């Protein structure tokens, strides 16, 4: 009888029972690094503005104080990612590769709807187990487009969107201030304010504001556009003067000569 072949793709759930038993015994499961996160996007008169905070958490600890959540998809398209950091990173990288090949195949600039379809069909196939919650924005031949994509594979097309744990705080800013035909400065300011609403009112979001402005034929990636959480200058100098610590042997350690005992037998 031939041995049962393991599927080469997809998830393996073999260890689920074992993990449950371990938790029952008192072990704690390892936490995936999540981007607690506030990510936003809006459409303004000339294109798209995307924004994100820069805090990555592992449980209640900040794993990365300045991570990049705005991922490159194509020269005219960027994607903000919330949820499991590894999932957003790898999913956007994969679709970015697929888009590059697709663009070469068709001889045309990638369209936002193409990226959206690739992402949603991939995530739907994995039934939500890939925890990627994305804000996709770009400018193609048909104009500026903004989508949200949930881990289970549903998408919404809207003029302004927020995702992540800080999305409610950020949405309050958009719902009170967004209107059609915003200028570039207004758009950037609104995105910055929305992200800061998330940073200061949501525990899962923090640190700095990244902004990305996408217009026809041009992208401005404004890394750390605002840094509202700079560490204040330390009040004192905490260096110790040389000689503070006494030590007994100032000379470097001497080599021991090989005499004691027999050498290890290393012959095969």
């Amino acid at each position: 009888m031939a041995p049962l072949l393991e599927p080469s793709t997809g998830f393996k759930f073999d260890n689920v029972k074992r993990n449950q038993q371990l938790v029952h015994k008192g072990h704690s499961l390892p936490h995936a690094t999540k981007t607690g996160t506030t990510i936003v996007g809006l459409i303004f008169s000339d294109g798209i503005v995307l924004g994100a905070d820069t805090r990555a958490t592992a449980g209640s600890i900040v794993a990365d104080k300045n991570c990049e959540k705005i991922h490159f998809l194509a020269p005219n398209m960027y994607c903000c990612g919330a949820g499991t950091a590894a999932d957003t990173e790898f999913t956007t990288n994969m679709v970015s590769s697929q888009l590059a090949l697709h663009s070469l195949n068709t001889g045309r600039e990638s369209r936002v709807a193409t990226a959206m379809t690739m992402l949603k069909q991939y995530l739907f196939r994995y039934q939500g187990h890939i925890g990627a919650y994305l804000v996709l924005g770009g400018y193609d031949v048909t104009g500026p487009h903004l989508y949200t994509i949930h881990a289970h594979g549903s998408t919404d097309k809207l003029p302004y969107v927020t995702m992540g744990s800080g999305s409610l705080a950020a949405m309050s800013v958009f719902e009170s201030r967004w209107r059609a035909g915003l200028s570039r400065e207004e758009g950037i300011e609104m995105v910055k304010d929305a992200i800061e609403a998330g940073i200061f009112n949501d525990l899962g979001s923090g640190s700095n504001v990244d902004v990305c402005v996408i217009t026809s034929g041009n992208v401005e990636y404004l890394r750390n556009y605002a840094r509202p959480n700079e560490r204040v200058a330390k009040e004192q100098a905490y260096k110790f003067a040389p000689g503070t610590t006494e030590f007994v042997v100032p000379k470097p350690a001497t080599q021991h000569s090989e005499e004691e005992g027999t050498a290890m037998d290393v012959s095969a």
Partner: protein
Amino acid sequence: MAQLKPGEVSLGTTIMAVQFEGGVVVGADSRTTTGTYIANRVTDKLTKVHDRIYCCRSGSAADTQAVADIVAYHLELYTAQHGKEPTVKVAASLFQQLCYENKNRLSAGIIIAGWDKVEGSSVYEIPLGGSIHKQPFALGGSGSVFIYGYCDKNFQLNMSKEECIEFVKNSVSLAMTRDGSSGGVIRLAVITEDNVERLLVTGDKLPEQYLG
């Protein structure tokens, strides 16, 4: 039958479709929820799967979008493969096959409505289990339970197009007021042989009803 998984986006929903001589009127609310948060307050749940065939989606947003995309793909190919336009029955059959074969994995309640040369106007309903029901009018979604009485009382066969539009508008509006998972604006589509007319009824223009 699959339940919505935690965190999955739900089309809480009120959807309905009514048949009249020469066409159909489909209507829906515009609310999509994740738990208690409204992820999209202006959703379009009336999805075109072919030129004169629309579906109303309720249940899981991801599941219904995926299923509708697959059916739209098959219908796009149908004309080239069969030499004639697909009928609403064909569309409904495709939906049924997907919904029934995958009943344990999907959470989708769909109403298919449209116009074709063979039958004229038709309305089909496919609830959660994947059964198919051809009806003169159909209701679906969590908000539909609140308006069965109203609809049973006020529906008449052979209503005109305008009467159907009023009927759908009134019914969906009543459901939206009573169902927490339904709300926003009312989206309507009137599908006839000649064209598809999309209508939007915003909150301030909802039909009059007792609001306390």
